[in-house]
């Protein structure tokens, strides 16, 4: 008999939501592997796959029988099992009976608790088929979905959609699985309309081949390839291009069992509607790929992925064209009817759209954002940043949310901001303002770009700071996976804008300005200082994350710089760059260690150490401490001058020059002197040193590197 065999498993399901399939495949694999391992069955290579109607798994070399296992069973202690002449007692005899083993086969074993009588039993392995019959229904119960349902009754199983058939084979034989009244078998289902029903399969290869003949491509990667190559063929033939759209491709891969690409047309008259809107209608609502010509202009065509081998009679194309026509007619209707009023006239309607019940309407948010946008632009204007325009920022903030009341955004919510920007531009609003409105939600992820102009940056920051502070003020604080107002994204957005465009801004001042807005306008609440601090920390955490993960700085560099001060992120970044450039220099690393030592000494000395005390030169006894005091004064002044000029590297270099003196101090001076006055003076010297030289970065955060 063969030792190993192939395992094939398919859960046949009513259409699984496309977005859930990739994760379900990964999870199915993890769960099955876990169970195989727990049962001591090795399986060779496992793979999983998914289509809208099935989740599948196979393993090429599953051990058909669980290996036998030797198991040592402890009986009574030796002292109880044998009397003083070494004869077995009743206890030993009854253990031998219980184990069904003669006394001669028992033995004594040494354990941490002493010597015990023991028996070696063999646990015979079970057939993998029997174990699988238990594992598989269990695995199906363990698969988790964001929203599951029951269909056989409230006490029945839960799954993403009703399960309708199961294929479960081991070495070509059916595994006896039962789940919700379904008995697993060796037949699968082909494509809903093109394939056969009840197709018998014997193994993975047979399964794949037969399903292919029945218009199901089980491997997602292969479906993706088919879609991509057909798109390529259609576009090159007609000299078109499609936008790279990985998300849309991913969707259509999991929406179809047998994807084919067809091309369709729409009336070129619709090209008068802005491309952003056309693309959204096609992509988000119909899942079509938009097509552009070589000049980058949109063409009046689209590519649709259909779940058929081909469009037999041209009816599918005609149908899709019809639907798109109606959608585009809608979009055109909104484009025209919305613009019967000017964008600004929608402002009053915002009073009817809630931002959050305790925080008022978008009308109220607009008032707050205007104040804040003006304040931010004003800060930049005062710092002499070219192009800072307070009145443009105010106007952009005034118009920013107006599109929420338009028909277009109510229909195509994902176009918020963009529609406002397009209307503003079409109505002759200043370029600076209309692009700012257009970009106000940017960046929408860590890889997205920031608003293209300065007013857009001011507006986006104002909107995000207001959301952050307002939500925190009423207790909406992101935790775990719950972040309904996308505050993490807002905080990341703040960091991205400031860092990428190198814009100076005091985070704490911006947060206070946001609080002022919440008090001056609706909802008229006072934000507690602790809450402001929490917002600051929240943004700080995002900054740390992005500096590490996106900008590639080491975590100790980021921590050291931010521990010194974290209020202006551009300044933080400059200090990190300086720190990074100097950390490997010959003086710096030992100095960092010395600083860590200083911190430890001060911590150990406790509150009546050097903190707060002033240094008295007359109390110095050793030359080394006098020298340190002297040099520290000189270098601190030099470093401070560099720092004022923003020359952080030079400042750090100046500080590094202190290294030999610090070393000498630790060699020659015993800080914890018996004389209290001397000791306190020395601690004060060190505390001052730490304070003075930690304004660029807290060196004690630096981790020494192995060379």
């Amino acid at each position, binding site marked *: 008999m063969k030792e190993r065999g192939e395992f094939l498993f398919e859960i046949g399901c*009513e*259409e699984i*939501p*496309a*977005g859930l399939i990739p994760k379900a495949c990964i999870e199915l694999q993890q769960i099955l592997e876990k169970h195989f391992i727990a049962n001591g069955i090795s399986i060779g290579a496992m793979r999983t796959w998914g289509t*809208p109607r099935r989740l599948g798994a196979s393993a090429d070399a599953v051990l058909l029988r669980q290996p036998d296992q030797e198991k040592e069973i402890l009986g009574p202690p030796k002292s109880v099992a044998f009397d003083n002449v070494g004869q077995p007692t009743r206890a030993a005899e009854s253990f031998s009976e219980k184990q069904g083993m003669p006394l001669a086969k028992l033995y004594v074993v040494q354990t941490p608790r002493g010597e015990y009588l023991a028996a070696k039993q063999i646990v015979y392995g079970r057939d993998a088929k029997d174990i699988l019959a238990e594992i598989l229904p269990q695995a199906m119960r363990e698969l988790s979905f*964001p*929203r599951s*349902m*029951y*269909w*056989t*009754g*409230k*006490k029945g199983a839960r799954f993403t*959609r*009703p399960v*309708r058939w199961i294929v479960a084979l081991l070495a070509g034989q059916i595994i006896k699985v039962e789940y919700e009244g379904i008995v697993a078998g060796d037949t699968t289902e082909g494509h*809903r*309309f*093109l394939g056969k029903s009840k197709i018998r399969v014997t193994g993975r290869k047979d399964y794949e081949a037969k399903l292919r003949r029945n218009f199901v491509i089980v491997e997602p990667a292969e479906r993706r390839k088919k879609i991509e190559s057909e798109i390529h063929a259609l576009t090159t033939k007609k000299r078109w291009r499609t936008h790279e759209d990985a998300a849309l491709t991913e969707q259509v891969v999991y*929406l*179809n069992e047998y994807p084919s690409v067809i091309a369709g047309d729409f009336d070129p008259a619709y090209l008068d509607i802005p491309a952003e809107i056309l693309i959204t209608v096609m992509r988000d609502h*119909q*899942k079509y790929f938009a097509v552009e010509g070589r000049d980058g202009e949109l063409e009046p065509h689209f590519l*649709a992925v*259909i*779940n*058929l081998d081909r469009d*037999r*009679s*041209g*009816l*599918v194309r*005609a*149908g*899709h064209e*019809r*639907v*798109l*026509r*109606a959608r585009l*007619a*809608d979009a055109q*209707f909104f484009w025209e009817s919305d613009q019967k009023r000017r964008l600004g006239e929608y402002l009053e309607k915002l*009073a*009817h*759209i*809630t931002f959050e*019940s305790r925080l*008022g*309407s978008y009308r109220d948010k607009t008032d707050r954002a205007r104040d804040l946008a003006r304040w931010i632009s004003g800060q930049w204007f005062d710092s002499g940043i070219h192009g800072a325009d307070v009145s443009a920022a105010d106007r952009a903030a005034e118009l920013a949310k107006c599109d929420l009341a338009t028909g277009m955004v109510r229909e195509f919510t994902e176009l918020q901001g963009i529609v406002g920007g397009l209307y503003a531009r079409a109505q002759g609003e200043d370029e600076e303002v209309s692009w700012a409105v257009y970009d106000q939600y940017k960046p929408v992820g860590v890889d997205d770009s920031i608003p293209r102009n300065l007013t857009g940056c001011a507006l986006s920051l104002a909107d995000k700071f207001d959301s952050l502070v307002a939500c925190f003020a009423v207790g909406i604080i992101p935790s775990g996976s719950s972040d309904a107002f996308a505050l993490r994204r807002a905080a990341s957005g703040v960091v991205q804008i400031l860092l990428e465009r190198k814009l100076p801004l005091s985070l704490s001042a911006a947060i206070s300005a946001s609080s002022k807005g919440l008090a001056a306008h609706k909802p008229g609440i006072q934000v507690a200082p602790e809450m402001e601090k929490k917002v600051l920390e929240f943004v700080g955490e995002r900054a740390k994350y992005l500096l590490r993960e996106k900008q590639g700085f080491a975590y100790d560099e980021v921590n050291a710089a931010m521990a010194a001060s974290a209020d202006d992120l551009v300044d933080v970044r400059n200090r990190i760059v300086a720190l990074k450039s100097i950390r490997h220099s010959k003086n710096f690393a030992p100095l960092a260690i010395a600083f860590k030592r200083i911190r430890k000494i001060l911590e150990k000395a406790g509150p009546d150490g050097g903190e707060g005390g002033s240094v008295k030169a007359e109390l110095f006894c050793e030359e080394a401490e006098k020298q340190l005091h002297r040099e520290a004064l000189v270098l601190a002044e030099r470093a401070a001058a560099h720092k004022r000029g923003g020359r952080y590297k030079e400042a750090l270099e100046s500080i590094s020059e202190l290294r030999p003196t610090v070393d000498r101090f630790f060699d020659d001076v015993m800080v914890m002197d018996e004389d209290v006055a001397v000791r306190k003076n020395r601690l004060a010297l060190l505390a001052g040193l730490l304070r003075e030289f930690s304004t660029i970065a807290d060196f004690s955060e630096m981790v020494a590197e192995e060379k």
Partner: protein
Amino acid sequence: MAKRAKASNVAKRKPSSIARTTKPAGPTFQQLILQLQTYWSKRGCVLQQPYDVEVGAGTMHPETFFRVLGPLPYRVVYIQPSRRPADGRYGENPNRLYKHTQLQVILKPPPADVQNIYLDSLRAIGIDLRHHDIRFEEDNWESPTLGAWGVGWQVLLDGLEITQFTYFQQAGGLDLDPVSCELTYGLERIAAFLQNVDSVFKLRWSDDVSYGDIRLAEEQQFSAYSFEWADAVRTREMFDLCEREAKAILGTKGTHAETGIKRKAPILAAYDFCLKCSHLFNVLDSRGAISTTERAALIGRVRALCCRVAAEYCAMNGWNEAAQTVGSLPQATAQVRR
């Protein structure tokens, strides 16, 4: 080889179907209704009639709302004209209507091959599924006013949404056991597709009367009413009155709240007033008369009534277990569709 021969037959048939220009394509609107009603009544459905109170969706018909509660199996099909005041476009938009016609099917409990039975209904109205791109795309349904939600799909025909297919999990705030399958066909869309017209008003209702002939005036007048004429103060008063009537009937422990009559409360009558509240809410909404905070509050008031009606209905029928297991609406972001 056989497959290829078949395919070329289809290709040959194509010119003839285009040549049929004298006879217009597809069934008339009324034929479509008859075909679907016949199809489903042959599959064990009671053929019911539309409800005579304004509703926003077929789900609100008592034949759905009450029948899905409790343990008794049921199958029903009916037409339900559904009013959505905010969707009115004065008859000027080719695809949007103040009132559209739903065909609603409830299968309780759903048979295991329910999807195939549904697909056969499409074949029955003349759709060749091998020549069209049919798909089931995720669409989880939720009705905040009815305290109901379910899991399912929108069924797309060449990209056109033609049916909402839902496995109800909860109604009136109660977990359902067994679950029901609800199929809601959008008849105007399907008819426009079958007749190949670009505007629902051009649909042939019968051989010689168009949809527009019959319904255009209604669209114009009710759009005008909901957007311009409805008096917000009076509508609100009507809402309050209906709510009070429903509450009075529900009373406390079988006692009429105002008259003190101690008899089995007529729950069905109370439900009618819930429906009226729901419609009046929609009128107020289309009139733009509902402020931000009020909106959620009003929906909550209607839902509270519906949930009480459902609980009382179960209690009255002795389905106490169902009435006790009050579930909660899921937190996940379901799209509010109806």
